[in-house]
Structure formats: C-alpha cells, structure tokens
C-alpha cells in the first residue's frame, strides 16, 4: 500500500481518538466544580438572574452533551469561541502562544536527540567502559533533576551571577538572534530529562542491535566500524528511539508548563495552567485539542518514520 494511502487511513482512524480525547477533557473540565462565571463574579453576591444570564451567554446552562456538540460544531468551522474570562477570541489567543511553544519544544526536542543519540551510541559501543559509566550517571542525574530546579539554577548562575543571558525574554521577534540566545537556557532545561531518556534508550536499543548477527555480518564483510555502527546498527536502533521521540511531544508539553513559568516564556504551557485555574473552558479545550492533534500527528510521523527506517514494516502493511 502506498505511503499516501496509508497516511490517509491513519489520519482517518485518528478522528475517533480526537473525539474521544476532546470529549474526555470536556467532561473532566466541566464536571470539576466551579465554572468560569464563578471565577468572573468571584463569591460576590451577584444577583442570581445576572449569574444565570451570564451562564446562558456561554451556553453553560445547557446539558453537557449539548455544550460539547455546540463546541464540536464550532470547532469544525475552526471557530473556537470567546473566552468568558478574557473576553477575547480563543483562536488568536492560542495561536499567539503556539509559535513560542513550538520553538521551545522543537529546539529542546532536537537538542535532546542531538545529545541523547550520540551519547547512547558511545555508551553502547563502550559497553561497561568509562564512557558508558559516565553516560549512565549523566542520564541518571538528568532524569532525577527536576526541571524547575534546574531552570532556576541555570537562571541564577547564567542569568544573574554571570549575566550571560537574559532572565526574561527580550523584546524581540521570536525569530531573532536575541530570542535564540535567550532560548538556550529554557531549551537546555527542557531537553535535559529528555536527553537522559533518549540516551538510555539509545544505549539499550543500540546494545541490542550490536549483538545481532547482521552487525557481526557487516564486520565480516570488512565494512568500516563507522559504517557498521552508524549505517547499520544505528538505523536499526532508531525504531525504538523514534517511538519515544514521538511520545515525547506529550512529555515536552508537560515540561513546558514548568519551564515556561520559570523562564516567563509566553507559551501554551503557561496558558494552559492559567486557563485551568481560571476555569477558562474554551481556552482549555482549544489547547487540549491542539495537544491531541499534535500527539496524533506525532504518532503518524512516528509510524511513517518506522516505515522509512524499517522496510519490513513497510511491506507488512
């Protein structure tokens, strides 16, 4: 089956996932006590009629399933509604944060792979040797370091003590040198744990591949060790890493919540946290939808990457 058809089929099968994910969050968010109107009016003794009319304004008086269907209808036309809290359109609000999160997420993701894959390879090749040990300890430390703590330490050391980087984002466009420089610390903070995970995974996966016959076979054929490792063992090990690298999208968002706060980064994580605490349902919904779509797309890409990496998968389908 062609890649295109396969992609289309996967995209279609993810629609129920999307519906499930959004319905679930819709339920969770709405069933939790309190709604945006409570937040808006606080606990002031607002006239019940006023309360009711405010609720009606945002359809909050309707049964949950109706609210959900209304929401789905709007979203189908890319209409994300208006936030009852801010009074602003949700679409632009979320879209405004998206580039920041993507920029940080992608750079952290790339950094974690750029560190984790080579470190994992070195560790696997050096199996049991000093480099393996160093990478093992490094990864352990990386995984165990809470990212808010790491972020603050980096912030104080490089921002405050050494003054090499800014502590808050500069007034510069996202795609600018100043911004890129500022992003170094948050990227490192966000990438550390991921890099650690990738390192360990890469190591074990590479280790497993190195023990396979084809590696010995490749050596027997007189290939250069670099070719054996990087062309053969690495490509085979990548399937496992690609899986995790794809799943990391979710992890990245989780980490972004903390890192974005530490570095005052105006991304989706910050928005999500604030919106949840303010019961800003439409914003929460839009963000969750976006995360769900991102996760599905990431999984799709992972599957496609599998197919590229491993012909057996390509043919089995």
């Amino acid at each position, binding site marked *: 089956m062609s890649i295109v058809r396969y992609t289309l089929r996967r995209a279609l099968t993810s629609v129920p996932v999307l519906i499930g994910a959004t319905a679930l969050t819709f339920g969770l968010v709405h069933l939790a006590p309190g709604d945006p109107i409570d937040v808006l009016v*606080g*606990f002031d003794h607002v006239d019940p009629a006023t309360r009711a009319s405010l609720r009606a304004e945002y359809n909050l008086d309707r049964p949950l399933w109706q609210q959900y269907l209304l929401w789905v209808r709007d979203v189908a036309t890319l209409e994300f509604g208006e936030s009852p809290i801010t009074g602003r359109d949700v679409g632009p609000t979320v879209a405004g*944060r998206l580039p920041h999160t993507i920029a940080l997420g992608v750079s952290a993701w790339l950094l974690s792979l750029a560190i984790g894959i080579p470190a994992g390879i070195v560790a696997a090749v050096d199996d049991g040797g000093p480099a393996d040990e160093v990478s093992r300890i490094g990864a352990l430390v990386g995984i165990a370091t809470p990212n808010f703590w790491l972020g603050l330490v980096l912030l104080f050391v490089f921002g405050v003590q050494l003054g090499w980087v800014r502590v808050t984002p500069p007034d510069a466009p996202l795609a600018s040198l100043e911004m890129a420089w500022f992003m170094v610390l948050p990227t490192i903070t966000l990438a550390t744990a991921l890099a650690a995970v990738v390192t360990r995974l890469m190591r074990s996966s590479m280790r497993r591949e190195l023990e396979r016959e084809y590696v010995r076979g490749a050596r027997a054929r007189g290939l250069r060790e670099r070719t054996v490792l990087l062309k053969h063992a690495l490509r085979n090990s990548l399937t496992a890493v690609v899986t995790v690298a794809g799943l990391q999208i979710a992890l990245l968002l989780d980490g972004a919540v903390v890192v974005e706060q530490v570095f005052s980064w105006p991304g989706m994580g910050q928005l999500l946290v604030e919106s949840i605490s303010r019961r800003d349902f439409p914003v929460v919904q839009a963000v969750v939808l976006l995360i769900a779509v991102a996760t599905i797309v990431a999984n799709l890409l992972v599957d496609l990457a599998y197919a590229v990496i491993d012909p057996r998968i390509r043919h089995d389908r």
Partner: protein
Amino acid sequence: MGVWKGSGERVGRRTFLGAVGVSGAIGFAGCLSENGSEGGETADQAVENSAEALIRNGFEAAGIDPPFETTIYANAENDERIRWAQLVQYELNETDLFDVGFEQLEWGTYEQLLLNMAENEENCLVTLDLSGGWDPHIYVNSLFHSAHRAPNGFNFNHYADERTDELIDSAVAESDREQRVETYGALQERLAQQVPISIVRSGEEATVYRQERIDDWRQYPLPGSEYDPVYAPYGGEFLETEDETTELVGDAVATVSNTDPVRMNDTTSNMATSLIYEGLLAVDFDGTPRPLLATDWEQLDATTYRFDLREGVEFHNGETFTADHVRASFGRYEGSPREPDVYDWYDGVDVIDDTELEVHLTGEYGPFETSVGVPIVPLAAGDGEIDLADEPVGTGPYRFDEHAEGEYWRLRRFDDHWFDGDDAVPAQPTVETITMRIISRPAARRAALEADELDLSVGLSADDVADLDGDPEYGVERAATGSFDFLIYPQYLEPFDDVDVRRGIDRLLPRQTIVEEVYAGQGTVAYTPIPPLLSEFSIEGGDPGV
C-alpha cells in the same frame, strides 16, 4: 471588592528556599524556639494553661475524651500557608488535647472543601487569607454575615449570629463616620467573644526596587494599584527616575486577563489598568477619598450625592469627558459579572449638565466614597466601538500601548492628561513607558530584578523581600495592607461549637512565630477581622475574649 487570595495569582507563591526544601526546617525550628528559649516563659505558660483549661471545659461539656482527632488543611500552592498550618498543628498537638493531622490539597479541591465544609460537616481546620479594600464592610460582611454563608460568600463555616448580622447591616447603612466607627468597634468585640474564626496575621505589601534607577518609592497599600506611585496627582506622588531613561520596567505576577472594568476579576488586570482608568474619586495612600474626575462632591441627603466634574478631560480615544460618561459607565455594570461593585448601592444618576450630576443610592451606604471611584470609560465602549477587554481606554495619565500576551504589558504616557501640575507633582510624568513583565514564578521575579531586567518588583516572596532588604543596591518599601490570614473552625461540629474550645485554640495560636519565621517579619500579628490599615475602625491590639 473582596479578593480571595489563593484563587488567582497568589497561587504558587513560593520562595526559592522553600522550593529547595529548607522551609520545613525553618518552620520547625521556629516553634521549638518559642517553647524553649523565648523570654516571658511564665506568662506564656499562664496563657497556655488558661487556654488548655478553656478547651478542657469545652471537651467536658461535650463529653469528649482528649485527644480529639481533626485535620488542618492548607493548599499545596501556598508554601507559607502550609508552614503556618503546620505550626498550628504542632502547637495543638503539644497540648495532648488534640490529635491533629495535616493535609495539603490542590487549589481546586481546597476550594471545594471550603465551600462545602459546613454542608458536609467536615471535621477540619482550614487556613486561608482574605484581602479587601478601604472599607471595613468588605471584610466582615462576606466572612460573618449569615446571608453570605458559603457558597454565596466567604462565611465558610456557616456562622450565624443575629447580633453580628445586625451590626454589619447597620454599619453599612450608615454614612456617619463616627457612628460607623462605634458600630464596627462593637462588632469586633462581638466577634472576639464568639471567635467563629481566628485571625492570625495581617499582611503587608512590599515593593523592592533598584536604587540606581529609583530613589524613592511609596507603596500603595492595596493590591491593584502597585504602579500608581509612578504618577498619582491625587495622592501627591510621582516617580522621578535617577537617570534620564524614561522607561520603567516592573513585573506582574500573572497574565493580564481582562481589562474591561465590568469583567475584571483579578488584581493583575487591576494593576495593569490602574494608571489608564480614572474614577470620580480616588482613595489616596492613606485611605482618604480625593477628587479625581470629580473636582468636588457633597452629600445632599442620606441617599443623594452631588458631584462637580472636571472640565477639559480627554479620553485616550479623543472623547471629551462629560456627565454622560459617568452615567454610561455606571450603567454598564448592570447584569455584568462585576455588578455588585456598583449595583450594591447605585440607583441612578441625574445629569444636571455636562459638569454636574447627582448620584442616587438605593439606601444609605457607608462605604460610598471608597466605592464610587469605578473606572469611567468612553461612550465608544458602550456602543461596542471599542472592546475594553482588548484595549482599555480611559482618562488616566497613561494609555495602553502594547500587550504581548503572557509576556508583557506596556503603558505609554498620555500627553493630553488633564493634570496641570502642582507643588508636589509636575504636569507630566517623567516616566514615558511602563512595562510590566509577566513573570509567574517568584524566584524568576527575583532573578529578573537581580539581573537588572526589572527596575522594581511588586511580587517578591516575603523571604526574598527580607533578603534584599539589607542590600544597599535595593530599596524596599513596605505598607500594611488590607489582608489577613485566618483559621476557620468547624463551629457546626462538636467540640468546636463550644466557644471555649475556639477561644482556647485561638490563644494557643503561635502568631508571633508565624509572622517572624514563616513570613520573615512581613506583616503583623492580628486578632480582629478589620486590618490595622483601617486604623480608625480597627480595634487591633485588644486581646480578644479576656
């Protein structure tokens, strides 16, 4: 307007030290020292003995064998609150009369516990803080009036006392100040006898600024007006920067969520717009109502006030301020989320001419002068021509310039502001732009200040403020504010229904330790629900129930 701290940006306030886990040790060391080496041991002992005796009486009356098991709660986002709750837990357990557990909950769950504790007869002691404004009514009404039992107010433990209700009702419907002082005095005494909750500490607002940029700063006591000292002709304050640069950079602890006055529901949005919007009156740094868009006012009878309006006032969008703006601005509150801000007292406006009007009240209203200064907005806002939620427009000395969501909020000097200058304040602010950087982590705020990316910070934790206080690079300006921390008793439940038990516990509360150890000396010990900020009304200092 009452702001329930913890519900918004106060969530997650924690210190750098607290985050790395030192806080627990400090808190614990604190309570040891109080019982150990502090002076006046015999006096303390006496208080303790009498407190324990009171509790024992209560237990006997209820037929309870000590220790009585209960749990004290704090919300996980608030480190200081957790620490002081644990101090109280420790103190109570020391008596052997109680077996108190401690639990922390996420804010959402915590909120539900608070709102439903009385309904569900929860056996719990709950810690919280509340901040209010310039009038005592705000504090006592929501907390103690039987009409405001949760979830319709902050009367979480469903305290109901006729005398209390009467005093609250009569004080608010009284515009004679002396009369009100007397009534609130009586109310505070009543509450001190009844102890439905225990007030522990009254808070303090602090701004830390870089000396090289700012020579002097005056703290506005209430949250929401943190940046007013930059230019506040009504209070005789303005900021002269040390150097020629005319940009001031400060911080904001959360995103600016909504800048339309009738939907504004958090202090950050208030703060962000406080220099943009002006009302008829403003309450100055000492709590005295001052003319702003009104030049003069007069109470005609119990329910009528006449205002002379300032001439030559221009809105940022070019409209000229008239009496119609006042009527329209008040009217916008009807049916809005912030309806009570105005409609608690507002009955209508008679526009006499462009510069004169009469405001009619639904009844005599004590806090009128501190309540009437709601933002006056252009008519274009009512027509839907402009959306204040996106772009606040007022008559203030600064106009909205730029909002990078989640990043910063910027104001620019409004060159056509009406003020002509006087002895204390020049006709124009020296600061041209004010940038409020949105920094949600307290530790990051401190870092930004230390990295010279902020000229001032209005959101440092108590520990950080104390830390920078001795540093010559920084200036620290503090002011007692209208907030207090308190402990809620489950007074619907044995043995807490017994006033002796509550009074006994109240006496055992380690208030001094809490102020010194948990809040690094920020704030003062407190006993009554009217903070010392309202010095005229507060009977602070009186030992309750003795």
